[in-house]
């Protein structure tokens, strides 16, 4: 404690505490807090700038003190200000300067702050301390208690020399009654207050208030120095007349051409369902009036709002207006928390097909891995796709049970699978559009969003599905509707798999790991379909070209047909070949291979004789080349001198992130031992082996060195050496590590047989993978599904807000969007995002939606679109955008300005409607002469609130006392009347 070094205070404290009463202890506690907060001594600093009490940053500090067992909170409120400059500090340090608070009583630059603590509004304070009953304590009501408190604080201020005004809150909290004191050297200001329910008649005007002010001052001087007056009348507009809120909640029953209630599928709704602006407050202000300039008494008033020199406007926003996008998101998020499975929601066997074999996965796997029954799909027209899947469904369930009605369901399915419509009627097996360009079409910004959020491109099937589910959830049966649509979707997926129809709306190729898992799964399924289709198409082509062999199966299993047998030179080689390729399940083929096969078939025929000769010549070349992709530069085989060919290889297996995770887990589990590492390499060598076999097939007579030169060029080391004759020649050899005996590369090379990729065992089992995906889809509960699709929904919602914002151009919304994007991308990085945090984010989105809706509401109300003059229009736009961001906005030109004219009309129209007067085309110009005092309908409603500030400087209490600031703030509302007075007096000369 700092006071420890001061012997006097030490003694004082000791004696004080041994004999202290509760009251004394309370006072000393207050003093202690004031000391702790360093509120002691001269407060004078630089004068307030205009509006600083509103624009500056306010801070507060709090503590708890008690009076006996009665708890109070003591709080210091203060405007944060920079440190004083030296000059200011010197000026301020005059010994007997008035405390800051007293000087500020007369300050006219901070009158009527739009948003401030009530004590600031009443007394223009920049710093004060409040002692108020603690949270659970009763209000201080009895007069004797109030007096005790008041005298306590006086003593505390006197003892400490604190110049910051100190208030106590009395009466019920809601009444905002404060009494307070400010002490300076030889001066003191008492803050007193009157608060009534009704405005007494004699004080219902300026002259009455001036009377009471003067009598309160009780100044002995005659005549009194003039009183300065500032007045603000506030008018409230609630009835917006013809500007009724245009947006209605969409009509869900109306279904027009793929739209529900005017809502297109794939579009999120946006906007508020009620007017998000409820009131307009017009404040008309007379900032400086000298007493006697205006007349305002019980019979007459000079105070015409149209003539007020200053107008400013505030708008009152509807609390939590119902916002469509927000509702959509909130409802969607709710699904994530539900537990029900699809079966529970729709009744048993939701995914089962009647009549046909059921979709039991083991059954399906068996069927497909059984070489005897290769599934050759019967091709139907595309138009049947969607419907046939659905027919199967509806047989299973009575129609009236379906949460989504047929029409809606049909349009959704057509929206999701547009290829069904495109191809309708074309009875053909045309490949459905493979949706190339999906993902590419999306903008850069969109691309960033989807990779940041891990969602899916905004024109992808997954994204569209998310939007449809969101809409179904909101309008068509909630959870059950979601379950229903999902079930239809999964059936469609199976149908497409079984019938070799590619799924539209997915980028080609392996799953995009930047997208959500569900999207990856669908891409995976598409990869499977693509491969299966290629295989099946290849077979079909073969069978049609080979009229002699009636079934594909025969052709395939009879790989060693007579014709081929004849062609093979070496029977022993033939044998091992057959042993590899005659099993159905090892057959692999793609379209390009098939073409090549046919081509080489033809060539074979032509070159049969020729080849025989060749083969005879080169006995090392024991097989004919197969599966060549293209030449590898001009490189030739080391031993043969023939051109080296890059082979057609098996495409790598597409993988979704969960498969990858699984795989890396398996690999990691093998541990770090030498055996583990060896096993790991072995497990991954399938691809290497396959490539080696393809290479061998394409390059008869090749050796490992040839392979390495293509596959791992840095492991073939070439050196310039001098040969015996002294010529420099290139000599090459395998790298040391490749030469290690028994290393896996050598091992694989030795076991590799020359088999082109198309006849190798498949590295990727599309059948198995497709069934796995379908199984996964079937197993998803609506909640799982919703979680999977959350990123897409958030993505779509943000795009929507961005789109709407860009029409209005609202900087603060842009800022919120930026924040949301950062938060969402952090949140969605984890597979199970915190739903609570997402809820916060949705609230942020709702906030932006409301701001945009407010902007639109204001634009309509102020008729921005009707404004023809460019400069006026710009002014209005600025004005409206300020209204959104600032608590109060001045209207340039007050009642005479362009904005003032518009506001005036708004009031006049409302007023006429209220009194049933027909609306004139041209209401009175605001600048014309004074309104008639009676008779005609008043154009303005009576002010809802009147605020009057009276200020003067007079000596108190005696004529020879110091001249000191006096102030009274009055507010007159319909059922609230308050006078807040600050009366200063000289405490040395009285």
């Amino acid at each position, binding site marked *: 404690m700092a006071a420890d070094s001061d012997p006097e205070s030490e003694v004082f404290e000791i004696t004080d505490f041994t004999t202290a009463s509760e009251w004394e202890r309370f006072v000393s506690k207050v003093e202690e807090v004031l000391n702790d907060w360093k509120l002691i001594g001269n407060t004078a600093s630089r004068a307030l700038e205009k509006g600083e009490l509103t624009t500056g940053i306010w801070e507060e500090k709090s503590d708890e003190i008690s009076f006996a067992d009665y708890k109070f909170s003591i709080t210091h409120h203060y405007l944060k200000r920079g440190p004083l400059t030296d000059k200011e500090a010197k000026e301020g340090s005059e010994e007997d300067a008035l405390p800051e608070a007293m000087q500020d009583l007369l300050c006219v630059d901070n009158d009527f702050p739009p948003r401030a603590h009530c004590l600031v509004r009443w007394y223009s304070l920049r710093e004060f301390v409040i002692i108020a009953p603690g949270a659970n304590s009763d209000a201080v009501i009895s007069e004797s208690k109030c007096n005790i408190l008041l005298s306590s604080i006086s003593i505390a201020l006197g003892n400490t020399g604190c110049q910051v005004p100190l208030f106590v809150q009395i009466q019920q909290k809601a009444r905002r009654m404060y009494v307070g004191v400010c002490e300076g050297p030889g001066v003191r200001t008492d803050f007193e207050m009157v608060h009534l329910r009704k405005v007494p008649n004699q004080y219902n005007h300026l002259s009455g208030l001036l009377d009471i002010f003067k009598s309160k001052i009780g100044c002995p001087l005659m005549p009194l120095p003039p009183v300065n007056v500032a007045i603000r009348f506030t008018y409230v507009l609630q009835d917006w007349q013809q500007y009724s809120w245009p947006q209605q909640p969409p009509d869900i029953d109306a279904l027009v051409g793929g739209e529900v209630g005017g809502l297109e599928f794939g579009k999120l709704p946006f906007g508020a369902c009620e007017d998000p602006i409820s009131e307009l407050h017009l404040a008309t202000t007379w900032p400086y009036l000298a007493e006697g300039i205006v007349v305002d008494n019980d019979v007459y008033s000079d105070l015409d709002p149209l003539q007020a020199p200053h107008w400013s406007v505030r708008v009152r926003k509807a609390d939590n207006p119902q916002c469509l996008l927000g509702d959509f998101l909130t409802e969607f998020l709710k699904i994530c928390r539900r537990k029900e499975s699809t079966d529970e929601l729709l009744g048993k066997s939701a995914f089962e097909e009647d009549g046909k074999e059921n979709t039991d996965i083991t059954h399906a796997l068996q069927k497909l891995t059984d070489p005897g029954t290769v599934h050759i799909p019967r091709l139907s027209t595309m138009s049947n796709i969607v419907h046939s899947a659905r027919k199967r469904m509806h047989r299973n369930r009575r129609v009236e049970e379906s949460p989504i009605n047929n029409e809606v369901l049909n349009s959704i399915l057509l929206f999701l699978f547009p290829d069904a419509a495109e191809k309708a009627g074309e009875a053909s097996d045309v490949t459905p559009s493979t949706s190339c360009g999906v993902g590419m079409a999306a903008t850069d910004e969109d691309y960033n969003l989807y990779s940041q959020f891990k969602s899916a491109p905004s024109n992808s099937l997954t994204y569209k599905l998310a939007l449809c589910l969101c809409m179904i959830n909101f309008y068509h049966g909630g959870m059950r509707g979601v379950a229903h649509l999902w079930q239809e979707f999964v059936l469609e997926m199976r149908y497409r798999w079984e019938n070799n129809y590619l799924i539209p709306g997915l980028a080609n190729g392996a799953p995009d*790991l930047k997208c959500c898992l569900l999207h990856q799964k669908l891409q995976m399924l598409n990869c499977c379909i693509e491969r299966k289709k290629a295989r099946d198409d290849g077979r079909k082509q073969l069978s049609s070209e080979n009229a002699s062999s009636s079934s594909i199966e025969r052709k395939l299993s009879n790989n060693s047909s007579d014709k081929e047998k004849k062609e093979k030179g070496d029977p022993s080689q033939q044998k091992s070949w057959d042993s590899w390729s005659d099993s159905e399940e090892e057959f692999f083929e793609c379209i390009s291979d098939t073409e090549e096969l046919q081509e080489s078939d033809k060539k074979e025929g032509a070159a049969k004789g020729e080849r025989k000769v060749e083969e005879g010549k080169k006995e090392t070349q024991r097989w004919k080349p197969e599966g060549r992709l293209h030449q590898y530069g001009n490189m030739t085989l080391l031993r043969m001198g023939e051109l080296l060919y890059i082979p057609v290889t098996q495409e790598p297996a597409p993988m979704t992130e969960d498969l990858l995770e699984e795989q890396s887990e398996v690999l990691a589990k093998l541990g770090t031992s030498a055996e583990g590492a060896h096993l790991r390499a072995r497990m991954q060598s399938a691809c290497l082996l396959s490539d080696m076999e393809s290479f061998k097939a394409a390059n008869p007579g090749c050796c490992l060195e040839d392979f390495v030169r293509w596959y791992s060029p840095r492991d073939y080391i070439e050196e310039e050496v001098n040969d015996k004759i002294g010529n420099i020649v290139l000599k090459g050899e395998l*790298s040391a590590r490749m030469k290690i005996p028994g290393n896996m590369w050598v091992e694989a090379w030795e076991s590799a047989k020359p088999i082109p990729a198309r006849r190798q065992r498949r590295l990727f089992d599309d059948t198995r993978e497709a069934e796995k995906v379908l199984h996964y889809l079937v197993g998803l509960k609506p909640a799982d599904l919703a979680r999977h699709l959350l990123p897409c929904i958030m993505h779509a919602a943000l795009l929507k807000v961005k789109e709407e914002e860009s029409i209005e151009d609202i900087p603060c919304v842009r800022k919120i969007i930026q924040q949301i994007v950062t938060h969402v991308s952090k949140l969605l990085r984890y597979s199970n995002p915190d739903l609570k945090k997402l809820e916060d984010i949705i609230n942020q989105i709702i906030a932006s939606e409301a701001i945009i809706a407010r902007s639109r509401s204001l634009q309509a109300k102020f008729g921005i679109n009707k404004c023809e003059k460019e400069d006026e229009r710009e002014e209005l736009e600025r004005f409206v955008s300020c209204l959104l961001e600032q608590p109060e906005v001045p209207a340039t030109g007050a009642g005479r300005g362009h904005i003032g004219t518009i506001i005036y009309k708004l009031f006049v129209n409302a007023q006429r409607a209220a009194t049933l007067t027909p609306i004139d085309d041209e209401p009175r110009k605001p600048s014309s002469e004074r309104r008639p005092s009676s008779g005609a309908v008043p154009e303005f409603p009576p002010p809802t609130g009147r605020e009057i500030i009276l200020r003067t400087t007079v000596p108190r209490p005696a004529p020879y006392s110091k001249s000191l600031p006096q102030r009274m703030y009055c507010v007159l509302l319909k059922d609230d009347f308050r006078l807040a007075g600050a009366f200063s007096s000289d405490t040395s000369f009285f």
Partner: protein
Amino acid sequence: MDEDVLTTLKILIIGESGVGKSSLLLRFTDDTFDPELAATIGVDFKVKTIAVDGNKAKLAIWDTAGQERFRTLTPSYYRGAQGVILVYDVTRRDTFVRLDNWLNELETYCTRNDIVKMLVGNKIDKENREVDRNEGLKFARKHSMLFIESSAKTRDGVQCAFEELVEKIIQTPGLWESESQNSKLRLSDSPDARGGGSCGGYCSML
């Protein structure tokens, strides 16, 4: 035994085949150099626990093959990695020239944008250097990477490379915590949040 381990970090070693990735890893984990080390097939995996600034971190290090064909397998291993070591061979310019490709790959497959990257120029024990140290430095600076030269054979710089990387990862907030705790939403910046109407004593007249 793992109780005092602060965190497990996933680290990836990439670069052209033959630049010495596996040798660097072996030197780091077992402090040996094996001239008979086989060429990697697919990916390999090793674990080591180290202490950095008094924090113990368990490193799960994935070593990749580097050959063109194996690359189709590796993108998966980029997932969730917190650190990556990109290696080139100072005696082979072509391995340095290919660095850009590796960075592209990293960019494409990496799931986080704050991954810590270290560039290592290996085989400085060899005489026929083709890439100057300054070139490596310049490249690293351009791409905001850590940089060191090393030799798996003589152990120069190896330990240091891994330690620096881990230290940097630990210093990067949000990179090693599985879930960042401090992502509370600040609503205060929205204009509405400054208190509408009847809050905490700050009010308008009406």
